[in-house]
């Protein structure tokens, strides 16, 4: 099992947190109301079950915080999220990102044909994706988790990178531009069904 002690840590933190929430004032109270609006699309606690809305539950804190800032600045263009991010203060973004990062990543159970998995794996090798997204493709800090994210969302955002719509990470955009749409589709399916 990977990061076995981290998992314990998460368990302990969750237990502590649950206890804390009952006994003490809710840390997230300043954003509770706004969080409800996020749940409408991203699912309860960010555990989205719809392909167009990325899973936020268990995504990296710093990554999400930066995305919200980038969407507010327009570096990451999004018709849907742009106005939402624009209405948030930095302190709210931080709290919300923290809230979502502390939730458990939901089970998605995507599967993929062997042939496509092989094609996806080839893309992961050529792009050295694991050098940054790490061996389990779960990211860290400013690098997002890709494993078990919705394939529709992964493909959409990779195409946004490729087509210059998502401009907030030029290095990732340049890399993804070197792949064909079919390759990006293959890798999306591979990533969404990823298991260790």
């Amino acid at each position: 099992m990977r990061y076995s002690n981290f998992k314990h840590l998460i368990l302990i933190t969750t237990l502590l947190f649950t206890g804390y929430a009952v006994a003490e004032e809710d840390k997230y109270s300043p954003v509770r109301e706004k969080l409800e609006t996020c749940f409408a699309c991203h699912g309860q606690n960010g555990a989205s079950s719809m392909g167009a809305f990325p899973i936020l539950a268990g995504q990296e804190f710093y990554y999400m915080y930066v995305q919200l800032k980038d969407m507010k600045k327009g570096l990451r263009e999004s018709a849907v999220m742009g106005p939402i991010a624009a209405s948030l203060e930095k302190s709210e973004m931080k709290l919300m990102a923290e809230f979502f990062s502390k939730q458990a990543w939901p089970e998605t159970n995507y599967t993929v044909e062997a042939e496509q998995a092989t094609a996806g794996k080839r893309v992961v090798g050529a792009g050295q994706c694991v050098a940054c997204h790490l061996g389990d493709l779960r990211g860290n800090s400013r690098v997002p988790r890709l494993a078990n994210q919705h394939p529709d969302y992964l493909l959409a955002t990779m195409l946004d990178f490729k087509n210059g719509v998502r401009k907030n990470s030029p290095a990732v955009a340049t890399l993804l531009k070197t792949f064909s749409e079919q390759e990006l589709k293959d890798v999306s399916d591979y990533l969404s069904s990823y298991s260790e």
Partner: protein
Amino acid sequence: MLKQKEGGRATFVKVGLASLMMAIGSSAFADEEIERGTLFGDMQTVTQDMLDKSAGDSNNFLHTNGNYEQTRFYPAEQINTDNVHNLEKAWTFKMDVVDSLETSPIVVNGTMYVTSSFNHVYALDAKTGKAKWHYQHEMGPITTYCCGPNNRGVAAYEDMLFMGTLDAKLVALDAKTGKKVWETEIADPELGYSETMAPTIVNGKVLIGTNGGEYGIRGFVKAFDAKTGKLLWTFNSIPENSVGVWAENDATGLYMHRDIKAEKAALKKLGDPYKTLGGGVWQNMAIDRDSNRAYFVVGNPSPDLYGAIRPGDNLYTNSLVSVDLETGEKICHFQYIAHDVWDLDAVSPPILVPVTNDDGQTVKGVLHGGKTGYVYVHDAGDCSLIRHSEPMVMQRDRWVLPTKEGASMLPGANGGVEWSPMATDPGQGLAFAINLHQPMTYHVEETPYPDGKLWLGGAFKVIPTEEQWGNVTAVDYNTGKIKWKVKTQHPMIGGILATGGGLVFTGEGNGLFKAYNSSTGELMWQDQTNAGVNAPPSSYNVAGDQFIVVGSGGNAQLDYKRGNEIIAYKLAK
């Protein structure tokens, strides 16, 4: 049995009972009886004298690269060409994190210190592999690193250990307990700074550089006071005037296709790019105690591939630099590649050895294994280049300029020699390097500084249809000729160790850990481990037995199978 206290705390803790109790978590260990070891006399802590004499020390492994000269030559001969076939696993220790493993074990009087990804530190009984304590750095939420959550080890001095962290902090630990003594911020991780190298310690100064060449940092080497963590000096690896001499050829004399006219125009328009020019220093420095100087190499400019935005030679990126240890002031430098747009930075730790110059005189020399795949031989006095070796790896269209569609070149961006330290055998005049053959395409894209985000100015891509492999190469540094070269299945990353037993030890991505005859390259022994062996081996002696130790945990950058084992070997009885 001896009971010794000072201010209510034990000052001496020796392997055995006391440490076991600590491992169990006794909080009141000050009151426990402490067994004082006899085998190694009174060498309870790491003195400056021990650090100075480490090159001849066949009990300990006190520095990341063996000694201040960084020769990675371990003098013990117990394990040698005649008996190495009897080498077998003595113990295996499993760490908590299964991820990229680049640690250099150091060994102090029978206690080994190793680290894992995400900055865990373990103290182990070097004889048995039993844990004495485990420290886990409390990582801040912001970490910015390029090539895996790696850590390459700790430095030891007196009764303390020092480690740089992924969130760009320097922590000092009590070597006996693993408790944190102090912590200080080295730089701001939001701007792309992070630490993976082990610090180097000399005369109470903790020296450490930084990663961040992929993020538009301004690189440095900093010296901190070992007792307090106070910053003593900073050497900026990028000077305010980074322009240089508009060099057209690299250190081997090969033309680099620079458009100097366009660069000069850009310089007028944009000014000196020093503030975000990169130049990380991410491996250890060699220390010359006689001249009180440090020698280190500086990494690539930012952004890696897009050069138009950073006109000039981009000093002191891709250079050997020597500074005064007292002040951090520069004494000399030598640039290998001016205005690099291929990420072929200088990173493998430099080595101080006597070398023969072109007049046949023996002078104090510095060796560096370049990502270009050459071993460079310098005069330590003024950093000048005496010679470079034959290329250890295949060269194809070197210095073709990156294009939008991607231009193919060898070496690839992971180089001919990556961060992997070389070893030397001064008696034979040989330097041993591990190499990569990894064809890549280099893509350029115009990119302004993205405020601390990844800044490559393009992309590197492995060419999946082309074969990749590695080599272990022995270079005669007094002639520049290759003495022997052995091909390996995969590109090599990790490091190598030479010993007085006529051997070199190094591991591969496929999990094989091998010993070669250091004068012929003949394979003498191998062991199959459970993950990629991509960390530098060390050697030490406990209770009369010589051990070889290495991490088997794979590598993020080259995607070699991850694991979590530290494995120690000794001769079968």
